[in-house]
């Protein structure tokens, strides 16, 4: 799975970071960074929760 973030709509609310801090990090510059673009399958539940919980719906998962 590959994590895709639409940075045009991301507002750095940091909800994803609260759910999966090893994958998503909002840094001091105020921007979101993806720490693991291709996380292991074991992280899927957390990533899907982050997708559902993003207030701006900026996160999606691409398979393959």
């Amino acid at each position, binding site marked *: 799975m590959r994590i895709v973030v639409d940075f045009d*709509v991301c*507002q*750095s*609310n*940091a*909800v994803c*970071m*609260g759910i999966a*801090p090893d994958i998503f990090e*909002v*840094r*001091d*510059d*105020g921007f979101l960074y993806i720490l693991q673009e291709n996380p292991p399958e074991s992280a899927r539940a957390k990533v899907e929760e982050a*997708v*559902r*919980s993003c*207030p*701006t*719906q900026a996160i999606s998962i691409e398979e393959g």
Partner: protein
Amino acid sequence: MSRGLGRIVVVGASLAGARAADTLRREGFEGGITLIGAEPHPPYQRPPLSKQYLEGTWGRERLELKPSPAASGGAEAELMLGTTAVGLDVRERRVRVSGSGGDGEVSFDGLVIATGCHLRTLPGAAGLEGVFTLRTVDDCERLRAILELGPRVAVIGAGFIGSEVAATCRKRGLDVTVIEALPVPLAGALGQEMGGVLAAVHRDHGTDLRLGVGVEGFVGDGRVGGVRLADGSVVEADLVVVGVGVAPTTGWLEGSGLALDNGVLCDAACFVKAEAGGARLDFVVAAGDVARWHNRLFEEDMRVEHWTNAVEQGEAAARNLLRGSQEAEDFSPPTYFWSDQYDVKIQYVGRARPGDRMELAEGSIEERRFVAAYLRHDRVVAALAMNRPARIVAWQQRVAARAPWEPAAP
């Protein structure tokens, strides 16, 4: 399902209801799901209605709720839109509805109550052209069409919606006056000092802020010309947006036997309580703005009118409904909300009460880049971050852990 719930009805087709329906499917529920919504639209995103969608920078496609199988109807969930729940018979397990398809009844084995809130109004506003409220996408589109005409705007109420609408109108270059009965904006939610910071933010962006003054009535006959304040002054305006808060939509539950008190009263796992004796009903849960549940993290009955809670509680209540009250897990989140106003991002975790102490924890209030901590008995019960999105998760963890206050916290 093991509990023998054949059909689950979700009343309220906004965020909490949609997330509940989605969760039922994700957890393997194979029975029927009916999602009943008063609006004619499938579930959609409300936060942009006071911000990007009102401003015109986001198109309608950004309001689509995704991923949400239930929101698209079909095999996942039957959508009954344009349909208002008007009554509940707990004994017979039926919801009475009224809507475009006529009046009727919908039977259920399990029920999710997610009817949210409705707007409070002001006397004298009805029938006066140019006076608006903002809750639905239809409200937003009507309002946006008027903003195109370049009106002088008055906003009544400096709560989250009123403040965001004011900020959006200023971004569009309109003259804006905000009228607030309290001495500072959001004093109840954020406290006096932080409310003062937000007042300064409004003024720095050219918004005329009238604080500590009530509204006497509207000026104008047929069409609004202004707002008359309690001090006798008049704020001239072509457009008035009333943002004086919301109330939980529980009218349809009057007489049903459910306990109602500023919302639908629930236990710690979101199961609703009966009026007499307070016994919980293990086949009815509530979620979102309408639910007043016992949050064990704060040992407080609370009702939260924010986006993240609608998602989290919708999911938690649905899971617990499938599990039954014996297997249910308490819903005890630290709670979170954000608000974007002008160039300021506010993020807030936890739950402060009047009387809690506030301390500057990080950064500088003057630079509007800081974290303020709210303390009770020297433990962190809430934190507000302004323009510090990188730090909110660390403070969320402190709130969740009821961490002791450390003045030099990193």
